[in-house]
């Protein structure tokens, strides 16, 4: 049961925060690449900093273990990112 409820709830909060930050809109996404609206960066970096502090503090206290960290393969990550940016600024997702 919790296998279905938990991701649904987390997903709902995730979608909710994306919507409220305006990241579901084309103009928000593309304007960060035009340097006219930095909301995407502000949003992403705030989330990163909050989660980083929380996760590393909780791990330090021994309250949680990390899941598998996304694999690093320099060329793949970079090339993937380069192609991703094209799609992102084309359709605004």
């Amino acid at each position: 049961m919790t296998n279905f409820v938990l991701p649904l709830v987390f997903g709902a909060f995730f979608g909710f925060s994306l919507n409220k930050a305006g990241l579901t809109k084309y103009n928000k996404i593309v304007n960060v690449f035009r340097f006219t609206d930095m909301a995407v960066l502000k949003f992403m970096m705030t989330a990163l900093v909050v989660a980083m502090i929380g996760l590393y503090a909780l791990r330090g206290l021994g309250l949680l273990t990390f899941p598998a960290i996304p694999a690093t393969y320099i060329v793949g990550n970079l090339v993937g990112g380069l192609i991703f940016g094209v799609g992102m600024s084309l359709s605004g997702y």
Partner: protein
Amino acid sequence: MKFVMNYIRKEEWSPYVAGILLGLVGIATVWASNALLGASGAFENLAGMIGKAIAPKVFDNIYFNFIMPPGITWGVILLIGVFFGGMIGAATSGTLMWGKKGAANSDAQWKRIFGPQVWKRWVLAFIGAIILEYAAGIAGGCTSGLAISGGMLLAPAAFLFIMGMFASGILTALIIYRKRY
């Protein structure tokens, strides 16, 4: 309490507040489910499932057997949650466009750049989404699964991905917007 309710009804939050909320959700997912908030993987899980049902031989490869196992995974259910969460967000601020006229092409800036035709929006969204999903497959995640979730675990991959994403995103925006940049 009234202040909180009023803030929830606001269409656009401060990105810092929304970011804090996402950060807390990120911590909660790792803590409760030992998983990451990935969005693009779910499409590959579903594609693998459909593919295995239609053409099992073609989909019988390393990628769909080991890297992205098909089926209704944790990520697929998360994606369903994201869909409804986004709708709840729009509904609370009264901007839900479900079934309304002009919902398919509602962005003013998009119309100014590409034109008001709905089919253009659909075609570009389709092409853009293919590019996104393909790139996410190469890199091992998308903005949420790799850049944000990987970044909060301080994965080097996430920061390489963000670098690439912004470099080509800025370049593409430059090409599309040219003088209007």
